Structure formats: structure tokens, C-alpha cells
């Protein structure tokens, strides 16, 4: 007979690298706790790896830490981790599974949705559970719009954008119950870990600068970059950039701010011709004072900036640099 008990547990896929838990893991535990309170279920932390059991002590926000250890899980690879998670989740289907919308989590969230046939909402900024209905709010179109969606079915997967929930809410001491679960056979994996490559040191460490002036695709060509660099110099700061500037080869990777670049927290961050995609915002949200210059009044950067200027950077930046220099 089919089990008709409604599912009410919450599960969080714990992300960690080199023995360190990622902040997003705590963000998701905090949110998972909130959802579990509504559903009346347990909060499960799913911890995969090799020699990772010790990390369970830091996951006090969960009721139970499900620990799965295996040689094939020693380093993150999308395939082995997905296979192990699919087996764990199938055995105890949660109402909601929270996965980080990171480089690691992206493969897992969509991979699990495909393998388990559970609906997925990506780029999630918020989620609510009321009267058994799960609504996920996802940030799409480069952060320009929010979609509120009602998730179908008894189990859903949400991939959560970093910075959506306070990490502190998921940092609790306490000794969660640890349940060790053997993974399914992981001997036919087609993806093998080779090595981790650490970033090269650059000429300037943008994570240590008090003032950053950041340039985005609004700059149009490499030849225009000195315009923005001069402003950075006038302010006694350094030049940083959004990803496309680095992908074009106009500035070195060490200057990149964002999800796949550096996380920076300067006292002043000036965003010049940067739209404010979620992946960029992830890396600079914590700056004390954010000023954005953009021709598009709807650019999402204005949702995080403290002060905004809606105009052409080519009109404003040279003037501003001149004024600062002669002040």
C-alpha cells in the first residue's frame, strides 16, 4: 500500500571544501529550520565526503546529520555526489531539499531533479510553506525580476542563491544526532577528481583594498578602461571588474569580483557600468558604501547600492575624476 503520510522533513545538502563548511550551508540550515517549524518535521543535514564526520559538530542547527563517507566522495565530483545523494533522498524523501546554487550545487540540484523526477526551482531567494503549499521565489533575468512559483508534488528541490538568508540563523551549537549511511555502489563513476588549483597571486589583492572602483561591460572597450582606473587612483583605491571584463582578457582574473571571483568588503565600492547580476552582487554585497553608475534605471545594481547615478559613465566619470583630483 502506498504511504500517504505527508512528507515534512527538510534536508540541506552541506557544501564544504578543503575541510571548511561554506557559509551558504549555514544560510540553508537557518532557512531549513524555519521551514521545519512550519511543517513540524525534522531538519536533516546531508554531509558527504571522506573523513568529514568531525564537521557534524558544527551543524548543531540540524536535528540529524546524515553522514555518508566513501573513497569516491573524498573530493567533490558532480556524478558520485549526485548518485549518493539520490539514494539518500529516495530512502527518506524530504518535503524540501535545499541545495546551494553554487558551482558545486548547480550540478547536484538539476541532476537530482532529473534523476528523482522532483521539481526544481533555481536561483531561489526565498521560500515559504503555508497550508502544505510550497512557494519559491526565484531571481531570474539577471536579477531584474522575481518569480513566485507554487511547487508541485510532495517533494521539491530548491537551489538557493548565496546571501539570501542570514548565516547566523544556521549556526547553532548542540550535538545533532549523527546517522551514518552507506552510499550506493559508486564504482562506475565517469568523472574523476585530479587536483585543486589555487588562484595565482596578482599585483594587487582586491580583498584588502579600502576603496574599489569596479568596471563592467558598460565600458565598451579595453581602450576606455583607463577612464575608470584614473578614478580609482584619484580615490586612492584599486581597479576591479565584473566577469565579462576578465573573460575578454581586458583585466586579469585577480581583479574579478563575484561568485567565481573574489568576495570583497571595501569601505567604498563604486560600480561603473555593471548591471548587478546575482553572481556579481554575491561578491560585493558586504561593502560599506556602494555607489553605482548605470544608464539603465532598472539595473539590479541599484537594489544593493546606497547611492545611484542614472547616466552615461562617459559623461560622469571623467568629470568626477577631475573634481576629485583638484579638490
Amino acid at each position, binding site marked *: 500500500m502506498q504511504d500517504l503520510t505527508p512528507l515534512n522533513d527538510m534536508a540541506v545538502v552541506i557544501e564544504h571544501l578543503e575541510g571548511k563548511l561554506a557559509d551558504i550551508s549555514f544560510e540553508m540550515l537557518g532557512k531549513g529550520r524555519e521551514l521545519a517549524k512550519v511543517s513540524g518535521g525534522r531538519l536533516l543535514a546531508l554531509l558527504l565526503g571522506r573523513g568529514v564526520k568531525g564537521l557534524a559538530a558544527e551543524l548543531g542547527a540540524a536535528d540529524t546529520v546524515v553522514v555518508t563517507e566513501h573513497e569516491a566522495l573524498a573530493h567533490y*565530483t558532480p556524478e558520485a555526489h549526485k548518485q549518493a545523494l539520490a539514494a539518500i533522498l529516495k530512502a527518506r524523501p524530504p518535503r524540501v531539499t535545499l541545495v546551494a546554487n553554487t558551482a558545486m550545487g548547480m550540478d547536484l540540484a538539476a541532476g537530482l531533479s532529473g534523476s528523482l523526477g522532483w*521539481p526544481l526551482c533555481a536561483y531561489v531567494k526565498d521560500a515559504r510553506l503555508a497550508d502544505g503549499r510550497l512557494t519559491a521565489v526565484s531571481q531570474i533575468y539577471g536579477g531584474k*525580476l522575481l518569480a513566485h512559483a507554487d511547487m508541485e508534488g510532495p517533494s521539491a528541490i530548491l537551489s538557493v542563491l548565496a546571501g539570501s538568508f542570514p548565516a547566523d540563523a544556521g549556526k547553532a551549537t548542540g550535538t545533532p544526532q549523527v546517522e551514518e549511511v552507506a552510499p550506493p555502489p559508486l564504482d562506475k563513476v565517469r568523472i574523476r577528481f585530479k587536483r585543486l588549483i589555487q588562484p595565482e597571486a596578482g599585483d594587487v589583492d582586491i580583498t584588502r583594498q579600502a576603496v574599489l572602483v569596479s568596471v563592467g561591460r558598460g565600458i565598451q572597450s579595453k581602450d576606455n578602461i583607463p577612464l575608470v582606473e584614473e578614478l580609482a587612483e584619484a580615490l586612492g583605491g584599486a581597479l576591479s571588474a565584473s566577469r565579462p571584463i576578465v573573460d575578454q582578457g581586458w583585466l586579469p582574473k585577480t581583479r574579478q569580483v563575484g561568485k567565481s571571483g573574489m568576495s570583497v568588503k571595501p569601505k567604498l565600492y563604486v560600480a561603473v557600468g555593471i548591471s548587478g547580476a546575482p553572481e556579481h552582487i554575491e561578491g560585493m554585497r558586504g561593502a560599506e558604501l556602494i555607489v553605482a553608475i548605470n544608464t539603465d534605471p532598472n539595473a539590479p545594481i541599484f537594489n544593493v547600492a546606497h547611492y545611484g547615478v542614472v547616466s552615461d559613465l562617459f559623461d560622469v566619470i571623467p568629470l568626477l575624476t577631475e573634481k576629485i583630483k583638484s579638490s
Partner: protein
Amino acid sequence: MNIVVPVKMVPDLVEELEVDAAGHALDRSFLKLRINEFDEHALEEALLLKATHGGTVTVLALDTGEVDETLFTCLAKGADRAVKITGDFQEGVSSHAAAVVLARALGAVPHDLILTGVQAADDRDGQVGILLATALDLPHVSVVSGVEPAPGGKAATVRQEYSGGIMAELEVDLPAVLGIQAARAAPRYAPVSKVRQVMKTQKLEEIPAPPVEAGAGSTVSRLAKPETADRAEILEGSPEEVADRLLALFAERGFLKR
């Protein structure tokens, strides 16, 4: 090596996005579509791989509207084949449904390597590449910048980018699906004259999409601009006035003393 690049049209984010009267979806009547920028990186990486290792590059697209020019542009850039999958996709299509359609279409297209853009601005129910890999039971790696096929073409070494500039080097058996974040060089540009010429001399292949059941697994009840209580204070005025106000702000916050 046979490389397949599924490409997808997305709303041009430079334009104003209008939500329809019901507040559930984009108003498609004024929508300007363009190729997903990460797909341009996927195509560039495919063309560079072809240049060093030989083989073919086939571009596939669901006919979500305005795809012809995009496909001709891919041919002008150097793709060997461009296939349009026709069907009822004008109102948009979920990632889950697109993945199933592409998986079926790939039954007739040889593929050692499938490169997609890492994500698209509208794939609310997940990234198509990963769902496609799952449907085909192929390994997948997302956020890839750097693909190096091993001699013999049975595997490839790829780099997956994590935060803080850390990367993992992974070895993947082929065929595989890779979500390309950035090609090793900036995507090439096809001059309009070249695209026009290709439109006259080459043809798009068309295959009808099979009927699929898959959907997003969720229903959008509201689509709206984010309402942020603490949106930026906009400094108004001429460039001169704005520059003065910024100068005053920086002075007040102590950024000018040296």
C-alpha cells in the same frame, strides 16, 4: 570529434522587461530575444576544439522565435550544421521540457561532446544542460572554463570554477555534457555581411519536436520587479551636478583626505 552545441534564445536584458497583464509571465509581444551569452562561449569553445582536434560542430535550437538569424550566425562563425527543432515553443519552454526534446533530437545527431552555456537568464527550473545529461544518462560538469580532450578522445580534462578563484581539475569520460562558463578566448564576432552571405548559400535543417509530457513542475503565480525597501538613493541632475554631489558624498565620508 563530434561536438554538439544546443543554443537558446533569451530576453535581451538590456531592454525593459514588461510583465503581462496577468502578472505571471513576460509580455512577449515586445520582447527582444538574443542568444544566451553563455551559449556563445560554448560555441566558441567548440569551434576552438574543432580547430585543434578536428571534427564537426552542430548547433541545435528549439524554435522559440527569432532563432533563424542566430543559427545562421553560428554557421557564419564556423559551425558545420545548424538544426532548428520546430514545435509549439513560441510562448517559451521550461528547461525540463527543452531537455527532453533535445535528448530525443540527439538520438539522430552523433555527439562525443555536448557543450551548453552554463546557465541562462530564464532557466527557472534548472539548467538545460544538466537536465539533458540526466535524460541521456551522460556525465555532466557545470561552470567549466577549460576543456582539453585526452588523446584518443575517450575522455577530457576540464576545469570547474569555484568561488575565490579556486578551480578543480576533473577528468570526464566522453560523451559528456559540459556547462561552459567561459571559452578560452572571447567569443568571435561574425560580420553582418558574412551572416547575410551564409543566409543565401546555406540552409538550416529542420526537425519536428516529438510531443513531450515534461513541464517545469511548478507554476508561476507572480512575476514582478524586486521590491527593495532600501533601494539606492538616486542622485539627479546634470553630469556636472551629479559629479558635485558624488564629490560631496566622498568628502563627507572621508574618502578624499590624503
